[in-house]
């Protein structure tokens, strides 16, 4: 099936909306579907878009205050009592501050606690490095039992939220603060553990997660003008990884680039590399933040500075293609 892309995806007129807004809508719908869905927030209710759920289901909304350790551990107790708790804060604080509590009381305890980390990545902007969470993918994907999802736009975030309400597992949902272009449509598929080929190509595989998929689509468009036909694969679920789809594309193109708005070490690119190194060892270019923290600035300015926009991605991908021979299967 061809993935239905937003017809405006390559246009300046493309609709934009914060990914977290999709979470807010999805949570409210999940609450309508299932009365066991409850929401907990750490004094950032509107910021994380939980206010929609709070207004609809005041009884099932629990204000925790600025106490992220308590946020996930209370959720663990609620889960034991049969509830499906969604917890939200900024990713820098949850899972940034409460990782051990998540490890012990959510994943080892294997309770379906949902950790929703908003304001991830450098596109948080002016708040600066303290609030630009870049290490969350790495610290969450190493936890056994944990599901890790970074939706690419607000429509997908809504679908992902609904899916997480049903998956029965401890899960991490990574959200971004800024308005993000919508590349998918209402009809686009989303399933936990599935990656989607958005654009077919033969010369290089571009694997994107979260906000980076849109930028990879743009990079692919620009590369096309230069005669490079890139395949773009959207990988919203970082764990469990859709190995089949990734392997098929890697086998076809022989070159893989990953992109994430997070540390280039330990995160999505590392997950892809770990997988490919065991089944089809090949050079993989991991694009992300290179072992440094972010800083204050306008979101777009920072995305450009860190080389994460379509235009800035192109030379990095070109150089990789130039330097690295295409992998040929023996």
């Amino acid at each position, binding site marked *: 099936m061809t993935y239905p892309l937003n017809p405006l995806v390559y246009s300046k007129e493309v609709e934009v909306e914060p990914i977290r807004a999709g979470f807010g809508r999805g949570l409210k719908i999940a609450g309508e579907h299932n009365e066991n869905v409850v929401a907990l927030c750490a004094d950032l209710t509107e910021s994380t878009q939980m206010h929609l759920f709070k207004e609809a289901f005041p009884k099932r909304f629990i204000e925790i205050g600025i106490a992220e350790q*308590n946020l996930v551990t209370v959720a663990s107790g609620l889960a034991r009592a049969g509830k499906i708790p969604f917890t939200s804060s900024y990713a820098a604080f949850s899972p940034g501050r409460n990782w051990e509590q998540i490890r012990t009381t959510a994943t080892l305890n294997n309770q379906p606690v949902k950790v929703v980390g908003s304001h991830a990545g450098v596109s948080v902007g002016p708040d600066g490095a303290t609030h630009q969470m870049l290490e969350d993918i790495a610290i969450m994907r190493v936890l056994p039992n944990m599901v890790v999802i970074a939706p690419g736009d607000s429509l997908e975030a809504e679908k992902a939220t609904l899916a997480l309400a049903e998956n029965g597992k401890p899960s991490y949902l990574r959200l971004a603060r800024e308005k993000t272009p919508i590349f998918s449509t209402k009809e686009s598929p989303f399933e936990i553990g599935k990656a989607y080929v958005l654009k077919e190509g033969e010369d290089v595989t571009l694997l994107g997660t979260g906000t980076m998929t849109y930028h990879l689509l743009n990079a692919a468009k620009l590369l096309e003008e230069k005669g490079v036909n890139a395949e773009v694969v959207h990988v919203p679920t970082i764990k469990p990884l859709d190995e089949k789809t990734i392997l098929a594309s890697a086998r076809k193109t022989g070159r893989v680039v990953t992109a994430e708005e997070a540390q280039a070490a330990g995160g999505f690119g590392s997950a892809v590399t770990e997988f490919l190194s065991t089944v089809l060892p090949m050079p993989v270019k991991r694009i992300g933040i290179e072992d440094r923290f972010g800083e204050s600035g306008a979101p777009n300015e920072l995305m450009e500075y860190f080389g994460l926009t379509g235009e800035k991605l192109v030379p990095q991908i070109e150089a990789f293609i130039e330097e690295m021979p295409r992998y040929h299967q023996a």
Partner: protein
Amino acid sequence: MGKLTVTQLKQKANDIRRDIITMLEAAGSGHSAGPLGLADIFAALYFDVMNIRPEEPEWADRDVFFLSNGHCVPVQYATMAEAGYFDKEELKTLRKFGSRLQGHPEREKLPGLENTSGPLGSGLSQASGYAYSLQYLDENPHRFVYVIMGDGELDEGNIWEAAMFAGKNKLSQLIAFVDRNNIQIDGTTEDVMPLEDLKGKWESFGWHVLEIDGHNIESIIDATSQARAITNRPTVIIAHTIPGKGVDFMEYNYKWHGIPPNAEQAKEALEDLRTLGGKITHEGAGV
């Protein structure tokens, strides 16, 4: 199960202590002092206070018990075995490869455990979440949530986040114990990080506070009855206990916090417990 008399409960506590010594000696590692100090509270909870069905651990109407200081789990395993959750033979597998009795409690391994704990400071939050669910989401006033914390673990900030949360929400179905034995690994609690005025601290967080002798079975049962009768606040029972209780050479000695008895010490400990108070308890009750 039918209710036991206070004398029978005291005997149960003694049996639990003997099980603890035997299982720790077999394990070759683990914590001695805390579990021995908690035996009376566990005997009272599992054999009198809590509404539970050991043969049906997931019984929907049960009271729930959360252990926050997971290192004290030998006393919980011993109590659960005494109560019939599993065969006492299994106690000998404590901390061994393949055992359901992990060094620190893992919920998924053993039916009857409500949580996984070990890293300190998170049990009160988990219990609070459960109590919140009963009180506000399920609106079921008939079930109660019990949690035991160590006093040393009150150093953790997570505990006071939970204390604020439970106080704010007046979680009256939440009944917490602080095992006030005054020791932690590096020394006495008041040397390592003073907790006093402990009663005042909990009161200022909106809790009803009771202080009892944690080895007096009647006091333990009375305190929990009082706690259940309080409908506008959570209750914390500060239970003063003697670490290593019942084994003369372990009592009050913080060095027994994190080590097990060797064979000779175990023999001496069991002798102490067998002849407690100069009277012989029923023989052959230990594992």
